């Protein structure tokens, strides 16, 4: 063999070895598939940097992040997991999708720190069939946002109160007086929304009394759900019978339709979701909005929402005959059954369950639901997390059947049928009958 040939061969061997070692290193890293965009991605990036910067984290266990787009995220995740993908070790997990993804995941033991950091009720948002499938990162529920200046002016003006009573009698069949939003029932909220709508009250200082998220989208059904729930609504009873065709759901659906038809919500509300709702409320032309807690940062930031930021009040969703109800929905990270680096992945999950990591995540914009003793340590910086914990503790609920494998499909079904009713394409009876039949098929 000539020298040139020897040189070529040895160069090739060195290159091959380098390639192999880089592949091994890449395989050894822990890859996390996170929830893209928004505060969740920002917070996750920050805590991952902190984790990777620790001296006791081996190079082989450093965390790398991977993001899909939000559109169709759960569908893409399901397709990947069903195909046995090992492109990520840890993946996003949501309360209402645990049953759907559990067959492709492995339960994890988060260690004793987890209970101290989050508390039992929050850990349960990541459990399925009694097993812990992930570490909770963010808790989502809904706040009732309202304009403090508008409500204060209404409550201080006798003529306005008389008009309010007149409107509530016309639309709700009873004379109501304006109340502090902390004491609102759904009727009080509806009367306020009607009063502040130009189509109902030409003197209203804003165009609309509320902004309803009515797009045919599963997340909008989560926002709506708390209304029927506070009237005693549920998906199924103890025997497993579907109970969606109930007075509670009828009341909620009719109230939304009445408000939309009366012009209390923007005309394009049937295409509205999270972003549109923020834009409507942030424009200063809307008096109230039932919206995700994640919007609090944007709506109270004078730079992002200059028209309203100084006057935004936040309370829990209004009460019904069964009290208040707030739909909780947890996001977290869980272990892929086909993970290539399970040991490293579990190490990261356990670290995420520690108090310091959870506080780090919260400081960087995440919305973890923390145990009272832990949240107290960050209350000055993140007062919204205190409300988050309080509301979750006092009013949080999950519908019966809400963590089953077909829970997301139930929301999809409701979104289709309920928006069909709100848009006038079918009657309430038809919408509820179809929803009931579909849910019986999905939850049998």
């Amino acid at each position, binding site marked *: 063999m000539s020298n040139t040939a020897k040189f070529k061969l040895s160069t090739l061997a060195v290159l091959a070895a380098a390639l192999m070692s880089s592949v091994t290193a890449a395989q050894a890293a822990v890859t996390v598939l996170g929830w893209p965009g928004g505060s969740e991605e920002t917070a996750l990036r920050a805590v991952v940097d902190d984790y990777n910067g620790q001296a006791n984290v081996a190079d082989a266990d450093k965390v790398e992040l991977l993001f899909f787009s939000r559109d169709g995220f759960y569908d893409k995740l399901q*397709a990947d997991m*069903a195909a046995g993908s090992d492109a990520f070790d840890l993946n996003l997990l949501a309360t209402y999708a645990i049953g759907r993804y559990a067959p492709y995941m492995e339960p994890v033991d988060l260690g004793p720190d987890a209970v101290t950091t989050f508390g039992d009720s929050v850990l349960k948002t990541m459990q399925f069939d009694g097993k812990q499938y992930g570490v909770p990162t963010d808790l989502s529920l809904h706040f009732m946002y309202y304009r403090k200046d508008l409500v204060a002016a209404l409550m201080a003006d006798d003529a306005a109160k008389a008009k309010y009573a007149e409107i509530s009698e016309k639309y709700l069949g009873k004379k109501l007086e304006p109340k502090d939003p902390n004491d609102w029932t759904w009727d009080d909220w509806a009367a306020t929304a009607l009063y502040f709508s130009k189509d109902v009250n030409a003197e209203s200082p804003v165009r609309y009394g509320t902004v309803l998220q009515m797009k*045919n989208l599963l997340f909008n059904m989560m926002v709506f759900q708390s209304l029927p729930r506070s009237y005693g609504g549920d998906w199924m009873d103890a025997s497993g019978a579907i109970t969606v065709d109930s007075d509670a759901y009828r009341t909620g659906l009719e109230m939304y339709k009445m408000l939309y038809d009366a012009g209390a919500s*923007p005309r*394009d509300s049937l*295409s509205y979701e999270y972003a549109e709702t923020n834009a409507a409320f942030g*424009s200063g032309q809307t008096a109230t909005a039932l919206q995700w807690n994640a919007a609090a940062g944007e709506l109270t930031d004078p730079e992002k929402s200059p028209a309203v930021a100084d006057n935004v009040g936040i309370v829990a969703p209004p009460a019904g005959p069964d009290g208040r109800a707030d739909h909780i929905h947890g996001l977290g990270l869980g272990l892929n059954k086909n993970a290539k680096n399970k040991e490293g992945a579990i190490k990261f999950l356990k670290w995420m369950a520690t108090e310091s990591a959870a506080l780090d995540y919260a400081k960087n914009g995440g919305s973890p639901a923390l145990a009272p003793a832990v949240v107290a340590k960050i209350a000055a910086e993140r007062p919204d997390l205190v409300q988050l914990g309080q509301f979750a503790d006092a009013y949080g609920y999950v519908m019966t059947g809400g963590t089953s494998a*077909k829970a997301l499909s139930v929301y999809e079904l409701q979104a289709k049928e309920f*928006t069909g009713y709100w848009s006038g394409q079918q009657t309430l009876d038809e919408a509820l009958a179809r929803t009931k039949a579909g849910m019986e098929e999905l939850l049998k």
Partner: protein
Amino acid sequence: MNSIKNLDWKLLNTPLVVFLLLFLGFPVIVNLYYSLSEVSFQTLRAPELTGFGNYLTVLTDPAFWQASWFSLRFGVVTAVAECALGLCLAIFLAPLIEKHSALMAPLMLPLMVAPAMVGLMYRLVLHEFVGPVPYYLYEWFGNSPSFLNAESAFWTLSVVETLQWTPFAFLLFYMAYEAIPDEVRQAAQIDGAGPFQRLFYIDLPLMAPTLIIAAFIRFIDGFRVFDNVYTLTGSGPGGSTTSLPIYIYEAFFKQGAIGKAVAASVVLFLASFSVLFGLNWLSGRRKGATK
């Protein structure tokens, strides 16, 4: 000699045949099998053969027919609108573009934008509180209509689609218009034909094959619309803006009803194939008649 040529022909065709078998034949067989099976994401690798139940489910599902009607209407309305506008633009702008060919570039810009981006863009443009269209309507008329409620969403979506794809029809028609020899028009003019007579008896008949092909391509594109509709209105209130591809997508991913979704796509494939076969047959008859 003939047998050598025959062998060459077979050898030359082999890559194409292998490609078609791999990338079309295999998925078709898998799809057919899935469409006759009970299959979900959990049983993706072990589907259970059940017969024609999925086809029955699809064909008796009112939502399937609602989606088919939406796709058909959308395909026809947008194809007609795009071709009509494209033809007008091609004829009226031809003298101008002949002198300033650079004008063609800005006219083609809408084609450069991904349809999903167009949907997102109009979601912003039409938003009552941040969109420029409602803003100016409020400024000028004190009010703005609903663009995306159940009644108006179809027409809004049609306008959005037409605005994006009219340049495509325009491009084809402009090329066809320019390909007509000037001598023919001049001869007609000498014979006393006026502008409208030249348009209806010279230009349009000579452009007819391009007109038909463009209308057909635009109809197919409109019929299978997904991206911009999905990003702008989703499947719409009560499923009112569900096109057939959206119906299939939702059955597959949202409901996890893989058998039903695949059966619907097989029905769509058969319908499309029938239309193509019919057109081919008509074209064959036309050729035969002109010989």
